[in-house]
């Protein structure tokens, strides 16, 4: 467990929770990135700009953090084109079929003690752990 970073994980997690509180308390919205993105893909009147601004802020935040800390943020991601395309497609398709992703179901849905969100969170944890086990220990592919 040499990569375990409990302090920064807890601090970051609390911030993520507070972000969800801000959006619900002020705007009455669930902070689900899938739901917010779907609203951009099927825009309704007077319901588009806040979504675009939220998602843009999400993209800008780590850049600001990196500048403020004067250190680059490390990203290690697979360079395999098929893995990126298949993985991305499944994440997008699955998140819509399952009505949400890690933020909507995991952070907000569990906060509302939603049975659907608990079902989704447990299900994607099982299939993701199984996928990593198959890819890294059975096939031996290290993307």
């Amino acid at each position, binding site marked *: 467990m040499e990569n375990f970073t409990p302090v920064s994980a807890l601090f970051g997690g609390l911030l993520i929770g507070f972000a969800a509180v801000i959006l619900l308390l002020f705007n*009455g919205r669930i902070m689900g990135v899938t739901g917010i993105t779907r609203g951009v893909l099927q825009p309704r009147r007077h319901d588009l700009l806040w979504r675009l601004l939220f998602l843009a802020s999400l993209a800008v*935040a780590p850049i600001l953090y990196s500048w403020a800390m004067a250190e680059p943020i490390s990203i290690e991601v697979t360079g395999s084109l098929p893995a*990126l395309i298949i993985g991305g*497609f*499944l*994440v997008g398709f699955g998140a*819509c079929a399952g009505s949400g992703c890690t933020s909507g179901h995991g952070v907000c849905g569990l906060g509302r003690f939603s049975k659907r969100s608990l079902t989704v969170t447990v299900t*994607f944890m099982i299939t993701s752990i199984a996928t990593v086990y198959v890819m890294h220990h059975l096939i031996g592919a290290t993307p």
Partner: protein
Amino acid sequence: MIRLAAAVISGLVFGLGLAISGMVNPAKIIGFLDVAGDWDPSLAVVLAGATGVTMLTFRYILKRDQPLLDLQFHLPTRTDVDYMLVLGAGLFGIGWGIVGFCPGPVYTTLLMGRWETWVFFAAMIGGMVAFRFGSQAMISRTNARSPAE
């Protein structure tokens, strides 16, 4: 206008939380999911911190008649667990396990100048659009089979 500011602040705090916790890095996600390898429990701590905040506060927020800047709360209304929900979550988990990106973190990496995140992002949007047209086609086929009486 002030509602837009709330959305910006929420997005910034969310992105900051993802950056500080290291959840922007797919390798760290894989490190959590790889329970048989050199396991990194960080993601569980992140989720516990985030849900700890929402579990303690959401109930009080939702007791209000309305949010501070809107006339009503915009909440999911469904409560039933159907096969589509489980199937979707299952497929989502497979994709998450393959690359280590889920929708929130992939947005946080878009401005970092890495082509990989844009390929994943484009495929993710493609998956969302495919679901939308797929479910529309399914609905119209069901309607055609059993016309409204």
